[in-house]
């Protein structure tokens, strides 16, 4: 049984496309930044901020909020864009990304934007912080978002061992399995497979999903929340640069924005086309 109505899913798709459009305009204006990860995690951010997470944009320090810990800080355009659409700050402010004195630093920094749970950028330490939070307060849920290339870093596996040892049922990890990283495809740079078995052997409950299917995302998170005796990981299979067919699946788009007139037009046209289709 579907937990969610077709109308609701249609609404999510429209919201996700709006967020993708914001992301692309941010990157074009900033003239630097990451394209692939933010676009492929947009559906998950949409599901989290517009359905799953408990938060209040007017009270970012509300003690009872769910915590979202972004470990792969370089995909922050999707975090900023989603937060803007969720009401934390005006959408126009997203155009200050990466600019001097902006609250929207190139990698997230709590000093500039206190609504963030952590500052991040150097890969591999977000999971440890989420594990620390989950140990410190076992009555709240902690969502840690990581990249897949990021899992090359050994610190993740230290954190996974500790999470398994402490049976952190309040920890939900979502891995952006977009299969790319800066130097190439993950399986060429440093093979991660069998990834599901690795997490299972570290005593995680593992759910593998299509990271662009809202029903699967929501079902998976709800299932993860119901597992109380071990931490959960959702391996979200995503398509790098999702939404712009010309960029999709290409590792070259990991760390650059659309910059040539052709690239800018391609990106805008692709998202406008989706908008038309969703009308």
């Amino acid at each position: 049984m579907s937990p969610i109505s077709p109308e609701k899913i249609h609404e999510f798709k429209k919201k996700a496309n709006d967020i993708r459009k914001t992301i692309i305009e941010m990157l074009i204006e900033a003239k630097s930044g990451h394209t692939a990860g933010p676009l492929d995690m947009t559906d998950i951010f949409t599901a989290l901020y517009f359905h799953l997470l408990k938060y209040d944009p007017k009270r970012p320090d509300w003690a009872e909020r769910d915590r979202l810990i972004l470990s792969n800080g370089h995909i922050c355009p999707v975090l900023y864009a989603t937060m803007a659409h969720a009401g934390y700050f005006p959408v126009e402010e997203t155009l200050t990304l990466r600019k001097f004195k902006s609250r929207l630093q190139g990698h997230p920094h709590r000093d500039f934007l206190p609504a963030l749970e952590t500052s991040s950028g150097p890969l591999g330490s977000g999971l440890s912080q989420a594990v620390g939070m989950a140990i410190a307060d076992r009555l709240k849920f902690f969502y840690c978002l990581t990249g897949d290339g990021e899992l090359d870093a050994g610190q993740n596996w230290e954190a996974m061992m500790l999470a398994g040892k402490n049976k952190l049922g309040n920890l939900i990890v979502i891995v952006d399995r977009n299969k790319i990283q800066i130097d190439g495809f993950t399986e060429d740079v440093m093979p991660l497979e069998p990834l599901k078995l690795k997490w299972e052997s570290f005593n995680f409950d593992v759910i593998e999903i299509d990271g662009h299917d809202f029903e699967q995302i929501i079902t998976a998170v709800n299932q993860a929340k119901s597992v109380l005796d071990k931490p959960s990981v959702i391996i979200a299979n995503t398509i790098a640069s999702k939404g712009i067919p010309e960029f999709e699946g290409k590792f070259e788009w990991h760390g650059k924005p659309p910059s040539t007139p052709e690239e800018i037009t391609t990106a805008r046209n692709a998202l406008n086309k989706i908008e038309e289709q969703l009308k």
Partner: protein
Amino acid sequence: MINPNIFNNDVEQVPIRKGFGEGLVIAGDNDIRVVGLCADLTDSTMMSLFAKKYSHRFVEMGVAEQNLASVASGMAAMGKIPFITSYAMFSPGRNWEQIRTTICYNNRPVKIAGSHAGVSVGPDGGTHQAIEDIAITRVIPRMVVISPCDAIEARKATIASAKTDSPTYIRLAREKTPIITTNATSFEIGKAQVFFDGAEGKNKNDVGIIATGALVYRALKVAQFYKEQGIKIKVLNLATIKPLDEQAILSLAQETKAIVTVEEHQIAGGMGSAISEYLAQHYPVPQEFIGVKDLFGQSGTPDELLEYYGMGESHIKMAVKRVILRK
């Protein structure tokens, strides 16, 4: 103000890390938010005292120092006051970037106790002798750096650090160290104290020694030796290396116009560097540096190693003479 028996041959000796262990228990008594995390060195860092009394507030991390730092950051984000321990070589050595980003950049009040600092770790050899830790911690914005001179001061520093919102590094030595201070000796983070005044407050001293950690004892002995020779030395115990007690350093430089810094650490980037960074800008005077001269440690007894690497009493004495000649 300091231990009246300090110059006796049978002065009581206690490992500085023991003071940390005792202080952490008191900090835990004072505040339920205090938690302890250790990377498989609970006994030798003396966190075992806390772990035994407050087992539910202790997290055994295994040999995982990077995780140690970042998990502590996460616990601090949820309102805890985490103390993390390992050998200084591994924390803040191995996990420096995690300390910089997840603790200091995030502005989380994690307290990092690095045990077995200095060459006086002895027989374990150079891999285990942290002589770079002051440099790598004091360079990080927001970090407070404390290097207690004995177990009593370590206890006070531990208790005091639990009451601040600052990320803090506390440097601890392994070996038994003479008890220099007493329970009555004042301690305040950021305040240096005069432990020896060769001029006895009557007139100006000839040389100022600024010392930190266990070598404060050797500095005091040198000051006592020269007092008998008619050379007057004022010894400043610089427990807090960051933030510097600038007023105390400035007055000492103005009074003596000759400074010797003494630390069991690389000269590059250490406490002496911090002093010269300040004095060069505000009151330049001749300065001699006692410390390790760009070398790694090796196995040996603490005394053999301190002597070999130029941090023995004879070296401090020579540095005093050199600095007087440069006045």
